[in-house]
């Protein structure tokens, strides 16, 4: 089956939703696809217990004139079309213009004990709680870096978790100066004040990070390095995330140039969000981490642009630039402490898919050679976790991914549709 869209949007987070709605408002035939079952992306993820805030609900529900393609994963690209996998089989979607709005994932760093069940990302546990994960009454330690720790704490507390403490690696001076700068973004200052109020009573410690997680079958306690020495805290769940990194795999597969000026690449775009490939635009956190407001503005900008309305796109440049500055502020104040680079010892598993230990990587200076010799990065996640961590730790940059960008069924790869049940085995 082949379907054509004037504008096809990949990723239904705030950026992709805005892009799709904006392009549709110009009369374009628009498709919006996401690997997730519901639109919303990370911040507006559907919550089984609590309804979304009203403006989020409006954005998520307002899909008039847009073909919503749920549980569609892009696995490969062909000329002006994408090979997608759905629960029913595979499809080929062609497009006039494409908007990449693939967002970001958490940066997860290895430390002794991080493979124990019960250890998750910070946004990771937040996402699981929204899916209905049983957190009520559980003691949760939240650690890592950035404002996402507070957002995660807020969600977890709403779901009945007992948040034992929030441990931020950035030092107190940096966090204080970040908070002071928020006055330039009144909406954010307001949000932060609300969060602080709701989280009152939960210890929020700075210059502190998880050194080690202990437990038999699952995590039971953690050692936390604080400015006053190592503290051991008992818990049922440990949620650790060190900020976000852009999802650039799809853009790379399409041949879009990436900006490598930071450790973690982002999609390179011009002022009006055009990538290096004709008719392909990118918006939101895939172009760099800067939060919800940027995602919404850039989504609209890309939607105008992809539908051929350049002036309307240009009108959004000033607010976009302003919000992008928030990203720089985040990066500066929550820069990672170099002690985090040394948390993993030789025995710590780095590649969780293939169980490769840190010590096995000694002597390798590039990802491809390490992969061939040790299988590091060869598993199902295709190096999204270990490759990104190793880049952050200064070992070596992540090697480029090849199609399929997610493990796909054999039938999808053969371009066959629909799926017969004995093809339902996946290569990894």
């Amino acid at each position, binding site marked *: 089956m082949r379907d054509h869209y004037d504008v096809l949007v990949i990723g239904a987070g705030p950026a992709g939703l805005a892009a799709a709605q904006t392009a549709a408002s110009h009369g374009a035939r628009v498709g919006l696809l996401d690997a997730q079952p519901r639109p919303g992306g990370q911040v507006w993820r559907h919550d089984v217990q609590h309804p979304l805030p009203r403006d989020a609900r409006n954005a998520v529900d307002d899909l008039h004139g847009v073909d919503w393609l749920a549980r569609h994963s892009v696995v490969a690209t062909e000329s002006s079309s994408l090979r997608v996998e759905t629960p029913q089989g595979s499809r080929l979607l062609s497009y006039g213009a494409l908007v990449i709005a693939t967002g970001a994932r958490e940066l997860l760093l290895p430390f002794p004990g991080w493979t124990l069940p019960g250890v998750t990302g910070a946004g990771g546990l937040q996402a699981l709680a929204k*899916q209905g994960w049983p957190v009520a009454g559980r003691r949760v330690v939240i650690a890592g870096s950035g404002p996402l720790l507070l957002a995660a704490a807020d969600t977890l507390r709403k779901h009945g978790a007992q948040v034992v403490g929030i441990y931020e690696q950035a030092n107190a001076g940096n966090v204080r100066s970040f908070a002071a700068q928020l006055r330039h973004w009144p909406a954010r200052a307001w949000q932060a004040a609300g969060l602080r109020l709701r989280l009152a009573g939960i210890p929020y410690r700075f210059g502190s990070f998880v050194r080690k997680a202990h437990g038999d079958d699952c995590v039971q306690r953690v050692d936390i390095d604080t400015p006053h020495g190592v503290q051991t805290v008992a818990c049922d769940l440990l949620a650790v995330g060190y900020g976000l990194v852009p999802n650039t795999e799809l853009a790379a597969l399409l041949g879009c140039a990436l900006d490598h000026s930071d450790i973690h690449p982002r999609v390179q775009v011009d002022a009006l969000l055009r990538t290096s490939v004709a008719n392909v635009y990118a918006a939101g956190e895939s172009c760099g981490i800067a939060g919800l407001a940027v995602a919404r503005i850039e989504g609209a900008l890309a939607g105008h642009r992809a539908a051929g309305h350049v002036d309307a796109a240009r009108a959004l440049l000033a607010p976009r630039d302003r919000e992008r500055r928030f990203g720089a502020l985040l990066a500066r104040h929550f820069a990672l402490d170099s002690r985090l680079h040394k948390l993993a010892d030789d025995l710590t598993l780095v590649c*969780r898919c293939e169980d490769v230990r840190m010590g096995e990587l000694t002597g390798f200076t590039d990802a491809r050679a390490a992969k061939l010799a040790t299988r590091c990065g060869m598993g199902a996640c295709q190096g999204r976790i270990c490759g990104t961590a190793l880049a952050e730790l200064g070992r070596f940059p992540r090697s480029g991914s090849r199609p399929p960008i997610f493990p796909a069924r054999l039938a999808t790869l053969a371009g066959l549709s629909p799926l017969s049940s004995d093809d339902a085995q996946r290569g990894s």
Partner: protein
Amino acid sequence: MSARIRLTVNGHPVEVPAGASVAVAVAHVTLRFRRSVSDTPRAPLCGMGVCFECRVQVDGVAHVRACMTPASEGMQVVTDA
């Protein structure tokens, strides 16, 4: 929101709210989602489809990411840990 979905995990009946993921259903029974190549138990890490630590078998199909799959009535989920 009040609707409940019934499914089984390793043969145990489980009830979850409509809209919950398979990962949630599994968590009601066990935190051992899969066994790694060197035989250690694993459970969800990223919650968003990236890490593949939550893979389970759903209605006979292996290697399904539990965090990306909505639970549905009568589903049979099997973990390998």
